């Protein structure tokens, strides 16, 4: 299997629990909306279609072309999926792809899957579709150029988000990880843009009906353009800031209380029977004891179920 994992699939252990859980929360919220919107706009026919499209993205990621020095360009697919399927279905498709990569191939962790889906499944779609949406009613040439830009920006956004998450988890140093990740993905993004534009050109020539007959309900409104542009702007602002003035960002994160939670406290949920956010108070010790008791109760409960006589025939 010439299936190459990219630097963007974060494995378990690289993100702190706090960052991983926040990403899960954001991801679950967005996917819930995507499910509702897709269900509403399209019938049951959509499910097999999206399943095959997810398999398509997965398989298309294997298509590569030699770039230079033994490296090869290949597709991430978020922007392409968003442009041909519409943003909400694309979120579902990318979510499934990343879930299977994590579950089946251990390409990306389980506990950090929320972050991986957020970076590669949601942000790429939002930026890819949002930027492309700007050129919705323009000529074919403009749309293709904008699609290329959208694809490149979607990769950069995912790379930046990945490095910020690593930094917030206390795993990487801001002023090294951001420039390094962005530099590598500048090139990867060019590959992404080339493939996306060529694929769109091909589809427009062979089956113009798929891209042309936009069922407005399935595709996104102007809100996507705003979201996409805003995220892209954030990338443009944060990237140089992180490389040139890391102290500034560190300061912001510290003020927001991120750095401390990321770097120390969450590795020590119950150190010496006290809970970090309550401090060394009696209440804290009591709570720690309660948590311990709950765990023991859970064990006893499961043992009880194990030892219970089976109901009915076994």
């Amino acid at each position, binding site marked *: *299997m010439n299936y190459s994992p990219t*630097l963007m699939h*974060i494995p*378990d*252990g*690289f993100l702190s629990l706090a960052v*991983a859980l926040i990403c899960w929360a954001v991801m679950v919220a967005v*996917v819930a909306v995507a499910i509702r919107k897709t*269900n509403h706009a399209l019938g*049951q026919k959509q*499910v*097999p*279609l999206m*399943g*095959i*499209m*997810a*398999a398509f993205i*997965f*398989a*298309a990621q*294997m*298509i590569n072309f030699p770039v230079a020095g033994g490296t090869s360009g*290949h*597709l991430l697919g978020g922007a392409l999926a968003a442009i041909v399927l519409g943003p909400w279905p694309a979120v*579902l498709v990318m979510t*499934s792809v990343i*879930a*299977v990569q*994590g*579950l*089946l*191939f*251990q390409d990306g*962790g*389980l*506990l950090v899957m929320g972050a991986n889906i957020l970076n590669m499944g949601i942000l790429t779609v939002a930026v890819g579709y949002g930027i492309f949406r700007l050129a919705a009613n323009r000529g074919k040439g403009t749309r293709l150029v904008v699609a290329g830009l959208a694809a490149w920006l979607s990769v950069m956004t995912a790379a930046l988000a990945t490095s910020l998450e690593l930094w917030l988890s*206390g*795993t990487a140093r801001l002023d090294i*990880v951001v420039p390094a*990740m962005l530099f590598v993905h500048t090139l990867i993004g060019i590959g992404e843009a*080339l*493939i996306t*534009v*060529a*694929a769109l*050109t*091909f*589809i427009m020539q*062979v*089956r113009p009906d*798929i891209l042309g007959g936009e069922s407005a309900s399935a595709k996104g409104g102007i809100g996507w353009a705003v979201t996409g542009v805003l995220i892209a702007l954030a990338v443009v602002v944060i990237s140089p800031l992180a490389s040139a003035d890391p102290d500034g960002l560190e300061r912001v994160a510290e003020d927001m209380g991120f750095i401390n939670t990321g770097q120390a406290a969450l*590795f020590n949920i119950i150190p*010496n029977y006290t809970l970090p956010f309550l401090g060394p108070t009696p209440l804290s010790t009591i709570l720690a004891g309660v948590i311990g008791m709950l765990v*023991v109760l859970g*064990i006893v409960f*499961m*043992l009880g179920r*194990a030892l*219970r006589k089976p109901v009915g025939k076994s």
Partner: protein
Amino acid sequence: MHSDAFDRYHAGVSLIHRLDPRVKVLVAVGFILTVVLLPDGAWLAFLIAWGFILTASLLSGLGLGFTLRRSFIALPFALAAVTAIFSIPGTALWTWQIGPLELTATTEGLLRFVSIVIRSWLSIQAAILLVAVTQFPDLIHALEHLHVPAMLTTIVAFLYRYLFVLTDEVFRLMRAREARSATLPGQKSGGSLFWRGRIAGNMAGQLFLRSYERSDRIYNAMLARGYTGQLRTLHPHAMTRADWLAGALALTAMLILQIAGRFSL
């Protein structure tokens, strides 16, 4: 290509193979959670955690080295964590001056880096073990029981079902490209970077259209066979005595890990 080309499942008859997939998913995720929560430098706990993984591999008849062999997939990612060595204040070990950057390695940073890599390495082995002893359709079904929305699990089920079909398409496309891209000795072959990118893009576009049209045929075939929007299973899962016992054992093991990680340093 065969339909199980991508499977990481290793068929076997063992206690662990027989467990309810829900238990296996929860135990694997719980184990990873426990490992991630271990403090830096909890060497004894790391060792015990690895012991648990080895025990589970032995119990499922996979052999001791099984998880080890595939566990280095995430190693490239450790590159990103190398910077942790220089990012935590503490006792200085050595200093590098690279351009404007002054990198001071600290004992604390090194400890953090090694711990991150070990935690990640243990987590990956747990995930490898999970898919080695659980068939993927069972895994999807377990996720459904654990309240993952049906729409997502159905998409994942389709993805799994057609992945190898579309991979076959990709290999056909790539073989066709190889066949038409002969290199003569001493002559430059292939076009510019843009040309190559465009060819790869055309292949992706072609793959998209083939997939799109295939999904139409599949949907029609499914309708003809009475598809109502729901997938059914012939394996209704039921928790047995052994499943609860395994769950209790696993929870105890996680508790031991946390205690070992925190109090025996």
